């Protein structure tokens, strides 16, 4: 209910280890609260749409540029090896597999963690330390539903979209590079590229993107929501949001790849 931190009395093990478990528990409670509040009406549509726009709009340019460059560079770098074996025809599908399976989800997620995660951390952090969140609370508004549910949901929904967009742009980049060397039509390229991608690849990519989006949303909202110590806390919330999100994304990447490869 209240967003104010209160100090614990006596450490059970040591203050540091206790702190770790307390934070862990706090985050679990935070996530549980997210699911409890997310499915209860009324939905804050206005703020949700605004956040989707923020997530999409803030990252779109970067996602486009990095996606395109990834496609071009990956194609450039793979060509010599493939041409040694005389199979440059595999380029489109090689690129598509690399992009969909590995690159697009990671690139989109890291860009969002850096760009959106830090801005959510800073925005909520400054609302917290200037008592704007308490101000919502006292005017009988549920700030968790208005601020947290909308942001986490927007991140979770927009990241998969950005990821697929990033994959598409990556393939476009690859096409431009391929097209510069040999005459291939766009349609033939894409036919070739996506022939090798299975339903499982799409499912894996989608699962990753949803999980990464949720992670970034929860981590940065949690950091902002619990910011303390004035303006210093705001910078810290923004900073820690990015670092922790990126760290968790890599850990999740490893786990998901293992899980889905065992299915494959």
């Amino acid at each position: 209910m209240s967003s104010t931190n209160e100090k614990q009395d006596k450490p059970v093990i040591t203050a540091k280890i206790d702190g770790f478990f307390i934070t862990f528990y706090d985050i679990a409670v935070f996530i549980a609260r997210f699911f409890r509040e997310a499915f209860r009406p009324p939905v804050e549509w206005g703020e949700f749409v605004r956040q989707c726009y923020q997530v999409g709009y803030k990252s779109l340019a970067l996602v486009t540029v990095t996606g395109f460059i990834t496609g071009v560079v990956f194609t450039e770098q793979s060509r010599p090896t493939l041409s040694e074996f005389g199979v440059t025809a595999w380029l489109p599908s090689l690129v598509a597999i690399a992009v969909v399976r590995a690159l697009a989800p990671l690139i989109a997620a890291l860009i969002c963690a850096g760009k959106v995660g830090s801005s959510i951390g800073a925005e909520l952090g400054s609302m917290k330390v200037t008592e704007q969140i308490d101000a919502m609370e006292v005017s009988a508004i549920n700030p968790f539903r208005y601020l947290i549910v909308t942001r986490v949901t927007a991140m979770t929904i927009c990241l998969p979209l950005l990821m697929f967009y990033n994959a598409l742009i990556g393939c476009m980049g690859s096409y431009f590079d391929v097209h510069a060397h040999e005459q291939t039509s766009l349609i033939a390229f894409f036919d070739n590229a996506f022939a090798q991608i299975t339903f499982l690849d799409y499912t894996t990519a989608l699962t990753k993107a949803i999980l990464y989006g949720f992670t970034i949303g929860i981590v940065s909202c949690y950091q902002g929501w619990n910011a303390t110590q004035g303006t210093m806390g705001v910078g810290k919330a923004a900073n820690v949001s990015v670092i922790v999100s990126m760290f968790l994304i890599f850990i999740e990447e490893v786990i998901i790849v293992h899980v889905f490869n065992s299915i494959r």
Partner: protein
Amino acid sequence: MKENGHYIDKNETVIKIRDLYKSFGDKHVLQGIDLDVFKGENVVVLGRSGTGKSVLIKIIIGLLKPDAGTVNVLGEEVDQLRDADLRALRLKVGFSFQSSALYDSMTVGENLAFPLKRNNRSLTRDQIRKTIDVVLDAIGLPDTINQYPSELSGGQKKRIGIGRTLILRPEIMLYDEPTAGLDPITCMELNKLINAVKERFNTSSIIITHDLTCAKEVGDRVAVMDEGRFVRQGTFDEVFTEKEGLIKSFYDYNFIQ
């Protein structure tokens, strides 16, 4: 007793606090607070920085939980309420933050519309606009509706902060240091506003301050807080007849220097 031309109903308590304790870690902030606020009354809580004045009113509005004691507001035990009931109670209690706490991503108009829309989803755009105009007129800032908080002066922010709580038509107002950090003229204007709010919106209030002019202007009763307890209560004149210790320091600082 100065009642600002208003009737105080001593039979009806709107806030009743008994034996209230609150600590943070081993820092004992509130140590046995008793307080009654009667309907139509302005109670001023005076005290040095860090004695727990803000903590006290945050407990009254349910932002903080007490360790021990009872807090009864408009007949409800605040710390026992479920979320929905607490929210219903908060509609009847306005809280003006020391820092104003305006939403800095929104204009003044949006700041005022925000609590209104969310607590009454059936209101039309026209009705909202009208309510905002009434409140902006009451706080004397009709021309700021399209400005952002960063464009306002400290005194204007305080007024808008008060306006944002008035828009829900509270029965009780809690003011946290309404005049802190403002020049004497702006202070006087805010004192007038606090009295005007009481007249026009029929509120009972707790006003936290360390400014004696403010206490004298707006308080029907003054309660002096020190080290987590009330050490003196009464009308301004009663409290400040005998000038010794903390009371004397306060008085000297405000009126002699």
